[in-house]
């Protein structure tokens, strides 16, 4: 949907000018979800009303509610983008029915993938994985993760007094490198729980008091689909190089990219960097 209907100019205009658009991960409004109870209750009510009205909806769906909050229409994926015009037609149907008036967006559009809010001495890293041929891959856009490292963790990227070459703490290396895989079917937040790591190591070399060079190696397996034992784990390998800027014992810049990476033989690339102006 993200690079289908939700990237189409007509649909964006309909949503911004006539609708109040909202999206939610099923995981978040489920029984163990992170949303407050009153939020979950409203989402559940809309979904239940759609099912009671026998609309064509399922777990991955568009729901249209009127200004009074009552369900009006709905459409499940993949019908919403097969053909891609279906979403626009669904939105237009309600615009026409309600004789909705065109207006300005009700909130300011903002980046949706943003760093987490952190407090204290925390290192935030942005991991982006792009397949070599993004058009032919599972997703037509790169996959991202935002990782946080506590002070106890990020200090292991730095050398002990006098050390020139050293290994970054194994658990910290694993925490970063386990996210080195391209877009796969991910249905919940803890998407790395199905990775089996054979090697995840980062070697570091202090080039000067303010610059550290990193060399990373990853070898792991990861099934494409979660919860499908019939799908074999896919071999995933990567080598990466990077640099850390250091000032006053603190990491002021972190950058790393893969020099070689394959997922089941298919090439992909990963970039890791400190946030560049993105805000929570």
């Amino acid at each position, binding site marked *: 949907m993200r*690079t289908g209907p939700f990237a189409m100019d007509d649909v964006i205009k309909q949503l911004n000018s*006539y*609708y109040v*658009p909202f999206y939610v991960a099923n995981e978040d409004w489920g029984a163990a979800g992170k949303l407050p109870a009153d939020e979950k209750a409203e989402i559940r009510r809309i979904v239940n009303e759609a099912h009671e009205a026998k609309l064509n909806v399922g777990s991955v769906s568009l729901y249209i509610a009127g200004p009074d*909050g009552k369900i009006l229409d709905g459409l499940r994926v993949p019908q919403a983008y097969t053909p891609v015009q279906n979403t626009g037609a669904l939105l237009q149907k309600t615009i026409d029915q309600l004789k909705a008036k065109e207006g300005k967006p009700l909130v300011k559009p903002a980046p949706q993938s943003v760093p987490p809010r952190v407090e204290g001495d925390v290192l935030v890293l942005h991991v982006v994985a792009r397949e070599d041929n993004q058009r032919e891959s599972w997703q037509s856009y790169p996959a991202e993760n935002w990782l946080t490292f506590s002070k106890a963790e990020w200090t292991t990227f730095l050398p002990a007094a006098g050390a020139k070459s050293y290994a970054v703490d194994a658990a910290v290396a694993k925490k970063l490198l386990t996210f080195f895989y391209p877009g796969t079917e991910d249905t919940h937040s803890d998407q790395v729980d199905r990775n089996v790591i054979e090697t995840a190591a980062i070697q570091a070399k202090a080039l000067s008091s303010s610059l550290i060079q990193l060399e990373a190696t990853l070898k792991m397996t990861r099934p494409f689909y979660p919860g499908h034992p019939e799908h074999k784990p896919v071999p995933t390998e990567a080598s990466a190089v990077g640099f850390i800027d250091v000032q006053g014992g603190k990491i002021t810049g972190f950058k790393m990219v893969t020099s070689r990476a394959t997922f089941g033989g298919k090439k992909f*690339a990963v970039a890791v960097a400190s946030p560049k102006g993105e805000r929570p």
Partner: protein
Amino acid sequence: MSRILAFALLAQWAGSTLLAASQDKTEPPTPTWVEGRILEIRPTPAERKFDTIAWVPSIKEALRLAKQHSRPVMMFTYDGQMQTGRC
């Protein structure tokens, strides 16, 4: 004839050795090169067009705005994390 063949084989061996050496001799990565690759890998504005939609962050706020502005709500439910592409 055999001397010509031997010379040709020697020249071929020397050439292939030189080619292999030049291919192996890659420049060591620099911070500037790494930064350039990061820019190539990160999502492009076209891949982030989804960000130009005025998404409201909660359903209660969406319903409040719908009532206030007489607009319908479009709610999309999905598995995974659509905003990061891990879905």
